[in-house]
């Protein structure tokens, strides 16, 4: 099975099996801290995305990206 199809199944499985994971609303203190964000420093992420898009042939994955440039 191609890896991406396997990953899709895992993703759906994660959804299905997720009800046993997680925390109660009053337990979110740690998770709400700024350093715990998925992207804690957005400007850094934008700069890195653009730099690596200009220097490599891979891109994206983290978010939907920031549009085009004539750099690749």
């Amino acid at each position, binding site marked *: 099975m191609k*890896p*991406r199809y396997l*990953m*899709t199944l*895992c*993703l759906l499985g*994660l*959804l299905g099996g*997720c*009800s046993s*994971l*997680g*925390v*109660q*609303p*009053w*337990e*979110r*203190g*740690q*998770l*709400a*801290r*700024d*350093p*715990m*964000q*998925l*992207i*804690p*420093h*957005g*400007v*850094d*992420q*934008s*700069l890195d*995305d*653009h*730099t*690596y898009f200009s*220097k*490599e*042939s*891979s*891109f*994206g*994955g*983290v*978010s*939907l*990206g*920031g*549009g*085009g*440039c*004539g750099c*690749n």
Partner: protein
Amino acid sequence: MQLKSRERNIRHLLSVAGASLLSADPALAEGAGWDTDTSLFYYSEDDRVTVFEPITTARKEIGDDEFISAQLVYDSLSGATPNGALPAATAQTFTTPSCQDTYTIGAGELPMRGFSDNRVAANLGWDRPMTRTLRGQLGIRGSLESDYMSLGLSGSLLMDFNQKNTTLALGFGADGDSVQPGGGKPVGMTSIASCGGGGGGGEDTEGGLEALGEIIGNYSVDKKVSSLMLGVTQVLNRRSLLQVNLSQTRFQGYLNDPYKLVTVFDNNATNPTYGDPLDYRFESRPRSRTANSVYAQLVYGFDEDVIHVSWRHFSDDWGVESDTYELAYRLQLGPNVYLRPFYRHYQQDAADFYRHSIPNNALPAYASADQRLGAFTGITGGLRLGLQFGDRNEVYLRLATMTQTGDSHPDNAVGSQTAQDLFPDLKARFVQLGLHYDFN
């Protein structure tokens, strides 16, 4: 505190599928004023490109949990970039893309083309709740440089499940790009002697700001880009989150780099010039490309410190395949100071049509000698120092070094090529100084 922490949790989950805007800084707070983040970024490669890039992002609450955001970027680029041709044992002369001028490269030197350019890019976004568990976001974006213009839009939906412990994100992006090199768009695999069939006769784009107005007037879609993302973020426990994203991006249209060449070499082993350059062709890439990626990230919070670990696997129908591993550790040194070292390891396999050069007796339909399509390893290491003040403000400094190394002496080098470095290392470093200030 409970309500605020849940809202902030939702906010950062928008980074799963948000446009550049939301991913720009989902940590920015709600309030009546602007929450801003501004950086000066300076990037420099050994003997190649230098970039100076101020960037600013701002976000503001305009309604009940409804936000608008904006990002503005200016790039000033200058220096020299490899033109795709190989170094050779003798001096080489090339015509500029518009055929208006020539430049000569010394024996044994990597052929590079001098250039300077300016780029402006802006994004605007809007996000708001649609139901108690559904959030929507729309964004528009554009960028402009002397020979390229891009316009696009994006949108996403986020759905919460399991008491907001699970979030499913679905997003799309669409861009229309206009490619306008000074000499016209070269036809792939044509000789530079013919100016690539792009007509020549134009001006070599000098990159001045006055040139930008012409680009806008001549905008037409030469390249279409569309992307879809499906993501899941799952709270694992009080200290950790897992995110998994699947993405697909499709490109259609003119995908060549209009400035890149491929050396045509003498493939006759009996010639004393075996391996020497005979001609140069403009590179040629397919007119379509489909790329897929899977990305997974784990965030774990210690009492003070936080670690981010991620992996991305990328593959496309050009044969490019890569794995990216990233690690960042936030070390809280005191109540107002932190250090965040980071490390990135990138491994790329070459595109099917990547060639360091092409034989004169067997020209392929597609070929590119752009090292960015080749096989290489990229390593980045650096750190960010933050000095916090006020409620959520900080001054920060980020430093890093980057290297790319490939095979300098591949097995398929022939004749005089074997004495040359066919994949010179890329070495770069950057410095970034920034201020995050929340006017709320």
